[in-house]
């Protein structure tokens, strides 16, 4: 089978023409680096993404702190993870790198704070 992928690993966004059988990649063309092939293989077997969102901060100078995942999660779990993040809130102060939710839904990825929010 043949399919064209857009590699999202870096801003080059290479358009990769891939030939594959099931989850086995036979050939790739158009990738500027080897990560493109890894990406295609991963997309065929288990597509993963990171997400970024915000969490409420109680008692902060800002109402929200931005957060992101430390590792990609299966694409079809994105909305489960969003719902889980939205069940939590933070208390000021928070700092970049603070773990807001460890190992979210047992998926092996932490939710970490990406903005410093001081106490109001």
């Amino acid at each position, binding site marked *: 089978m043949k399919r064209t992928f*857009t*590699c999202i690993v*870096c801003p080059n966004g290479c*358009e990769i023409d891939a030939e594959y059988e099931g989850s086995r990649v036979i050939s790739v063309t*158009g990738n500027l680096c080897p990560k493109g092939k890894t990406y295609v293989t991963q997309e065929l077997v288990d597509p993963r993404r990171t997400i*970024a*969102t*915000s969490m409420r901060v109680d008692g902060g100078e800002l109402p*929200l702190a931005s957060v992101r995942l430390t590792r990609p999660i299966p694409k079809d779990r994105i909305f489960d993870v969003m719902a889980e993040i939205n069940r939590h809130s933070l208390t000021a102060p928070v700092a*970049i790198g603070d773990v807001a939710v460890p190992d979210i839904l047992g998926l092996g990825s932490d939710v970490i704070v990406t903005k410093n929010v001081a106490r109001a």
Partner: protein
Amino acid sequence: MMHEQAVIVGGGPAGLAAALRLREKGVKDILILEREHKPGGILRQCIHDGFGLMRFGESLSGPEYAQRFIDRVEEAGIRCITDCTVLDITHDKLVTAVSRNLGLLQIQADAVLLTMGCRERTRGALATPGTRPAGVYTAGVAQSYINLQNVMVGREIVILGSGDIGLIMARRLTLEGAHVKGVYEVQPYPSGLPRNIEQCLNDYHIPLHLSHTVVDIRGRERLTSVVVAQCDERFRPIPGTEEEIPCDTLILSVGLIPENELSLAAGVELDARTRGAFVDEHYQTGVPGIFAAGNVLHVHDLVDFVSLEAEALADSAAEYLLCGSLPECSLEVKAGSNVGHVIPQRFSATRSFTLSLRVRQPLKDVSIVVRQGEKEVLRKKMRKALPAEMIQLPIKAEKLIPGVELEVSAE
């Protein structure tokens, strides 16, 4: 009146990077003036990741990327006045500003660094017909509401324009539970980066309609629907193709414009193509001692390049401050076939510099060729070149012929 060696107008990614580099080069009196309550610029609301891949080799969110620079600026003891709006800059580099805490400020600078960034094109500038109901936002304003103020803008969303912020917002709104019905782009190709089309639209099954625009906006107090239509190659709506789409929110992502009112006040001449200043290879504008880099000069696709450009600016500005002048740049860099614009527009042919450009339309299997007269200075083969992507080429001094103009074309 205060006196500073360097006044930096705007504490976003360009201003912060320039300040740090100036300090590294030995410039002592540096003052950053920032309009908002905190430095960081637009990055503060760009909470998605993907920043810093080039610079730090990791995928950071906007606030994290900004904080790395803010921390270093603080450590270096560089002064930054926030809540401070610059009102005027003169040709002689007298900067007038008003600060919430300090009142009116008059600062005589030896060098002024323009790093004000850009702003969004608005609906008014686009002259979209129809009534003026609530529920119409630019992508950046919607982003600020959601990411900074915790205010959700709507539920049923249509996006006009496929700029990167619009694509990022399509995903963000979807994650927050809204239904993004589609993105409509008047051009026959997307204006955002391919990776954003993939990870912000395709991942969430949001349709992208190329060669389409919004021809009517309906609703009395709140938006109730928009009418979209297909467009011909001259962007005129084709009669009979109209379709009404019920929605409560229209997001505009129709382009960014460098914010240059202050540059004009200082007598800086602007390039109609970039809407930013004409600069030489030192990022010096037509006014000696006034420099510009980042999105105020030309709209970038990646913040990593903004930081790099600001650092290159600071290298030159430091030389200007410490040596008193910079080599003259009297030769023109011309945008040839298929090239929309080039930065810098002038060079000296005695030093190496980075040439930035964008192509006019998507091109496949193309070469970007830099020539002086008949002589080829550089040729870069590309499998694809897109208007969405800024292309940068290193121009080496030893390859340049003295006294001959450069022309860049995509062929």
